[in-house]
């Protein structure tokens, strides 16, 4: 039946006589096209002598002419120095020892400079330098070339000269002195004795002077406890290389706890030697790096952690403070840990990161009772000095209007204070506010004077990281901008005509002996022979224990604020390397998020799921802490998160003086009330989903024990290597043979010359990621941005895979997989194995090009762009590569990276390679790859070649362990060892013969030159 339906396009059509409908029926365009405007002028048209034909001729001719002209090569200018500095030889790198002390990170480092510009950070291995550089320290060289830096001082928001600043500040200070108002210096922890001296001299002129130290991420309670017992405001140092049993309660000592840097001592004791290694028990709420590396991890809420600490105290000291049991699930585990700690005696040590004076006092009490050798209060650490109470008092003073001059340096309170907004308002009441800052950040934008401060690589300074050491910071480049450091300004404002360099040089003699000044600057550090002994005072430990035992859960969620390995406290938020650095635990980059236990997420309806393009999505949640709401916080479901707790990292959500792409994440400082990282919070599901840029979507190993081989210390000690480090079997002529005995190709004789190998010890690797950033800076690895990372187009040459066990342990995974049979059973089991356990074991595995002796990538390249070197390195000739990507598809390790776009000088990728300043960090010895080219780890070919050349020039064989790569150099824990296996003396040669040695995917027969050491757990 034919339909008589008529469809109306508008009400107007109902009116049969409508003229509009009639017009529309005949005309495509309602309004007439204004052709007359350009064709109507008859006169102009006819008088024009250019016909269409002529026009085409001109276009054709000019195109041809332009392309002809383009054939000429460019003229390149070379401009030598007029007077070449003595120490600079173009093409040769210079190294300078210096020290970073930015209030959050402290380390003795070497700076590699080329033609006068710093390009890389390396570890200073002089004796006494205890803290090895972490990812942020490695990335700090890029922050020097931040194009958003403050380029000159500003007075009242307008660019000014330093003379104007001096006039303004001197007038303000004089006024303050006259009126008797407070003059306050608010700084970060500088740990600089000469600056302290200078500040005291400066302050002596004012009746009402105060110096307040403020750490954006506070360790105030630990400092209070140490001060109560030992009488000095400092932190105890720990030497984990002399500990057999380590119990950490909420202390991420492999992360940023109290300034970090404990991984070197820790890792040394984690490698089994003569059948012995340390035992590490971690009690914590968030899954941290330390928890991931622990032999036994006990997920506890913060309240439970406090109780657990009292249990430890009771067990070790024999006291009997009444304390509730630590939940049902883990009470026995805590008891066991306490027992093990007590049995270890002086070889045991306890650490805590709880922001509670009582907890900190208990730790001192327990370590004292153990007479722990690892606990070193006499080597006091000065990496944190902030006093939460004084900061609070200062804010009140400012609000009350009693502060007339406020000079800030290295701090950004408007961003980092929980009540930053209030502080911003209160700043208006201060007559003279000065902020020394590298950027016009949240605070500097609201002060009277924004004093442009130099980067630490442009400044002088001295640092006492631990008592008994004295380190020097020296400039490695002339200041890039019109900047002045705080100390120079203080000198000039106090009428001292000396420069800070002169002042430092003169006053430094008080702080070190046994070296000349030049030697000190050369070494970067001086260690004094005898550290004075320390006498412990009395403190009410029993009272502290009772108080701690009385801690009660509020019933809400317990929010644990932490700092991420990449971002720290957020002062380097505009650093693209750090933004793109994947978090070692969640493997997500460019974000912070609230971590939730799976059980809690299910209750709240929060979810994580993968979408078709391989991206990870997560629900939004709303957090409420003390009446402050954080909206749209992305949710990351975190295995190992203690049920009833949430984790949220600080340091994100910055907006001032940041490139658009870098303004990511949620600022968690507003809920950092009273500088306590433990808050009680409410959480509810928000609207919409968040798109993460997560580099690893698979969470478990699915029982494939041959990828990350591991065993227990017991088995390792008692059984033959063939049982716990089995060589995979393959079928040859229908019989099983060891895969290492089968070879598809003729082997190349590599016995002559160098043959490079790299050993990765899975026991020593803490997953910290320092190597990832070191690799970036050595090899000019581009930053691609959040959306590209989400598409799995990240360019990291070195990735650190993180795996969770889906059962309690990886061993159980393997067992489960092997016992699975039958189709239906397999499917359901394997489906279940995709999910990690509630409190899983964690394994880290750094993976980069394995430099196979029989490389699958080489055989498929149609243009022979990737080929094999006889020194064991798999070469990649970028200029030859045409971008077929066959090699990446044929690589079993998935380590090849493709340049989908041009990442340099491209405004679509507005990171450091897009501005002249940022490009100064590039290593001139390594090519910057272009679009359409495959790239990958070269085993730092440029570094091995440089080492060989050095030996050749000096006419000597290469020395023992002289070869290194960027990653092996950066590894503070000694997990990555590089060397020449044809040199019998090299460490790597011995490691290759070790029982624990295995290759990744050995059964494929690729014969890699990178090998791993079986992970041994001391369970």
């Amino acid at each position, binding site marked *: 039946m034919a339909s008589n339906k008529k469809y109306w396009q508008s009400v107007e059509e109902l009116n049969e006589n409508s003229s509009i409908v009639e017009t529309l029926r005949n005309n495509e365009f309602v309004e007439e096209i204004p052709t007359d405007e350009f064709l109507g002028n008859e006169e102009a048209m006819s008088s024009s002598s250019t016909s269409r034909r002529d026009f085409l001729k001109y276009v054709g001719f000019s195109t041809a002419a332009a392309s002809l002209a383009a054939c000429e*090569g460019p*003229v*390149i*200018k*070379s*401009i*030598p*120095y*007029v*007077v*070449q500095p003595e120490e600079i*030889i*173009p*093409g*040769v790198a210079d190294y300078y020892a210096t020290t970073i002390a930015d209030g959050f990170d402290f380390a003795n480092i070497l700076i590699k400079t080329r033609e006068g510009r710093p390009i890389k950070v390396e570890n200073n291995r002089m004796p006494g330098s205890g803290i090895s550089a972490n990812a942020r320290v490695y990335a700090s060289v890029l922050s020097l070339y931040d194009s958003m830096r403050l380029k000159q001082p500003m007075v009242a928001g307008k660019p000014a000269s330093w003379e104007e600043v001096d006039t303004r500040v001197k007038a303000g200070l004089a006024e303050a002195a006259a009126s008797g108002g407070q003059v306050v210096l608010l700084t970060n922890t500088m740990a600089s004795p000469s600056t302290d001296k200078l500040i005291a001299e400066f302050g002596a002129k004012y009746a009402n002077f105060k110096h307040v130290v403020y750490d954006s991420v506070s360790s105030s309670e630990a400092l209070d406890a140490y001060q109560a017992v030992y009488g000095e405001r400092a932190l105890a140092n720990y030497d984990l290389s002399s500990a057999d049993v380590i119990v950490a309660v909420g202390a991420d000592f492999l992360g940023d706890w109290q300034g970090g840097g404990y991984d070197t001592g820790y890792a040394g004791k984690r490698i089994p030697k003569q059948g012995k290694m340390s035992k590490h028990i971690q009690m914590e709420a968030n899954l941290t790096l330390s928890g991931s590396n622990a032999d036994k991890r006990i997920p506890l809420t913060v309240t439970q952690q406090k109780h657990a600490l009292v249990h430890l105290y009771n067990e070790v000291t024999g006291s009997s403070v009444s304390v509730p049991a630590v939940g049902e699930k883990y009470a026995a585990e805590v008891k066991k840990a306490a027992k093990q700690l007590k049995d270890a005696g002086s070889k045991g040590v306890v650490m805590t990161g709880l922001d509670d004076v009582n907890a900190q006092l208990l730790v001192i009490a327990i370590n004292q009772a153990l007479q722990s050798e690892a606990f070193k209060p006499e080597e006091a650490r000065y990496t944190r000095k902030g006093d939460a109470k004084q900061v609070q008092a200062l804010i009140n003073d400012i609000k009350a209007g009693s502060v007339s001059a406020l000079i800030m340096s290295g701090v950004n309170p408007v961003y980092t204070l929980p009540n930053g907004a209030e502080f911003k308002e209160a700043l208006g009441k201060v007559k003279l506010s000065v902020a020394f800052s590298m950027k016009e950040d949240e605070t500097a934008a609201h002060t009277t004077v924004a004093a442009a401060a130099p980067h630490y690589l442009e400044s002088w300074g001295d640092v006492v990281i631990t008592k008994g050491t004295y380190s020097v910071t020296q400039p490695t480049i002339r200041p890039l901008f019109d900047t002045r450091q705080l100390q120079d300004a203080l000198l000039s404002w106090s009428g001292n005509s000396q420069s800070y360099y002169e002042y430092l040089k003169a006053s430094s003699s008080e702080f070190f002996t046994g070296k000349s000044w030049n030697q000190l600057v050369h070494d970067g550090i001086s260690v004094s022979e005898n550290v004075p002994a320390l006498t412990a005072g009395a403190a009410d430990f029993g009272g502290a224990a009772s108080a701690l035992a009385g801690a009660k859960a509020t019933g809400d969620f317990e929010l644990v604020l932490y700092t991420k390995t990449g971002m720290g406290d957020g002062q380097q938020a505009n650093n693209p390397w750090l933004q793109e650095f994947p978090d070692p635990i969640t493997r997500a980059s460019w974000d912070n998020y609230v971590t939730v236990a799976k059980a809690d997420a299910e209750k709240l309806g929060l979810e994580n799921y993968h979408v078709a393009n391989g991206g990870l999505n997560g629900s939004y949640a709303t957090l409420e802490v003390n009446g402050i709401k954080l909206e749209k916080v992305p949710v990351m479901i975190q295995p190992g998160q203690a049920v009833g707790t949430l984790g949220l990292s600080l340091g994100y959500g910055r907006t001032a003086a940041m490139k658009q792409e870098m303004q990511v994440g949620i600022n968690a400082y507003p809920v950092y009330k009273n500088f306590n990282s433990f808050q009680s919070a409410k959480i509810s599901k928000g609207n919409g989903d968040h798109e993460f840029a997560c580099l690893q979507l698979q969470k478990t190993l699915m029982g494939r024990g041959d990828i990350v081989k591991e065993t227990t210390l017991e088995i390792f000690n008692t059984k033959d290597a063939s049982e716990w480090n089995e060589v995979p079997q393959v079928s040859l002529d229908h019989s099983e043979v060891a895969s290492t005995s089968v070879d598809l190709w003729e082997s190349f*004789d590599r*016995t*002559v*010359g160098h043959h490079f190998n790299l050993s990765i010890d899975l026991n020593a690797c803490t997953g910290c990621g320092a190597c990832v950033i070191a690799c970036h800076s050595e090899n000019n690895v581009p930053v691609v941005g959040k959306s590209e990372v989400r598409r799995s187009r990240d360019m990291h040459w070195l990735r650190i895979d993180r795996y969770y066990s889906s059962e309690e342990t990886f061993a159980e995974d393997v067992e489960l997989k092997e016992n699975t049979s039958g189709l239906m059973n397999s499917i359901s089991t394997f489906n279940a194995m995709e999910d990690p356990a509630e409190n899983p074991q964690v394994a880290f595995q750094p993976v980069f090009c394995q430099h196979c002796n029989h490389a699958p990538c080489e055989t498929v390249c149609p243009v022979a*762009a990737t*080929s094999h*070197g*006889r*020194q064991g*390195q798999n*070469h*990649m*000739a*970028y*200029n*030859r590569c045409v971008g077929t990507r066959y090699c990446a598809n044929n690589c079993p390790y998935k380590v090849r990276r493709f340049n989908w776009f041009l990442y340099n000088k491209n405004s679509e990728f507005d990171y450091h390679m897009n501005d002249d300043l940022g490009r100064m960090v590039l290593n001139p*010895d*390594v*090519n*910057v790859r272009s679009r359409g080219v495959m790239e990958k780890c*070269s085993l730092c*070919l*440029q570094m091995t*070649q440089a080492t*060989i*050349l050095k*030996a*050749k*020039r000096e*006419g*000597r*064989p*290469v020395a023992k362990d002289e070869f290194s790569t960027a990653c092996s150099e950066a590894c503070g824990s000694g997990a990555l060892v590089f060397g020449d296996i044809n040199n019998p003396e090299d460490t790597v040669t011995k490691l290759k013969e070790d029982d624990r040695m295995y290759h990744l995917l050995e059964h494929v027969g690729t014969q890699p030159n990178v090998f791993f050491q079986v992970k041994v757990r001391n369970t």
Partner: protein
Amino acid sequence: MKKVGNHTSFSRILFFCLALSLSFSFASYAQDAAPAADAGQEAAASAGAGDPAKGKELFNSLCAACHKLDAKMTGPALRGVSEKHDREWLYKWVRNSSELIKSGDAAAVKLFAENNNQVMTAFPQLSNEDIDNILAYTSEPAPVVEKKTPGGEPVAQEGGASNNLILGALVLVLLVLIVMLVLVNTTLRKVAAANGVDVSKKGNTISFWQAYARNQFLVLVTSILLLLSGAYFLYGYLMQIGVDQGYEPIQPIHFSHKIHAGENGIDCKYCHSSARVSKTSGIPSLNVCMNCHKNISEFTGSKDSTYVEYSKEFYTAEIQKLYDAVGWDKSAQQYTGKTKPVKWVRIHNLPDFVYFNHSQHVSVAGVECQTCHGPVETFEIMKQNAPLTMGWCINCHRETNVKVEGNDYYKKIHDELAKKYGVQKLTAANMGGTECGKCHY
């Protein structure tokens, strides 16, 4: 019969042209051969009656480091110094000037102050006679400064002008030739017309092209030949893209390697010192130039030296450019502090994706600079000598033996490899010098 007449007229034209061109070239030779008259100088009898020839020898060996005859250097200009001071005083001064100054001699103190308190080296070994000889030399009258020719054109440019003249003459000759030919042609046609011969008429034979087109074999052969030669030339054209062999740009300062490395025999690595230790050979910074040019402020090479291609004034002006850049005040003998870097045009441009290290080749392998850069000591203007293509690099690596003598690094590797390959000497390629990753990373 008429043809003969035409023939004679043609040869007449040819002769005329030859004569014309010859007359031009004679003219230009005449200009070149103008005698470079040297103002002959008679040795003037001097007051001290010393021997100026001996004096010159002494002056050059002892005094010239700090003094010139006519210009201030570290010390004052010395011409006519014997008239300014008493001879006895001069003896004392030369033997030990500082003693004289200490003694408070007014003239000595004044002189000392005038010369930036620079102490003059004492020469106690000189006898009175020696000093007399030197003074005799310094008392010779200054040579008469050559009067510049009205145009003031340097020699080389005069040569250019005569070349232009010859070219002009040739063009003229050609023009005349063409006119003649046209005239001859018209004359012939007229003659033919007059005789009733039809010039335009052609025979009834098939044309050459038609015959060619019918011969298929010939067509095939020629087209293959054409294709092959086309491919050959195309390949040749494509292969020279980006190859700048012979690139000889004009530099901001005319620096003659011929004078420095050739005539003066300065070692390459004296100026390009970083070639020994660095990947770049380094363009010398200007302070290196000033090591010598602080004292050498003008070009003194004689005009008829074989190596001089430009005039004295030209070279001296180039030295002045250096002074301007480095900020050296020649008359005050001090730096002004005003510098402007020299923007040299880079000649050897390796692409970014190639790693080349000078020290490997210069220090380790002991390769002479000339091996790649050519006979630089003969280059008046620096140019790229080698093609710098990958084939060129690889070829050398294949042919050159590794220099192992006295280098402990190579000892073990070389012995083992030599055994393995069964050869006495190893080439760089044997050592892995042709692997991609050795130069590309």
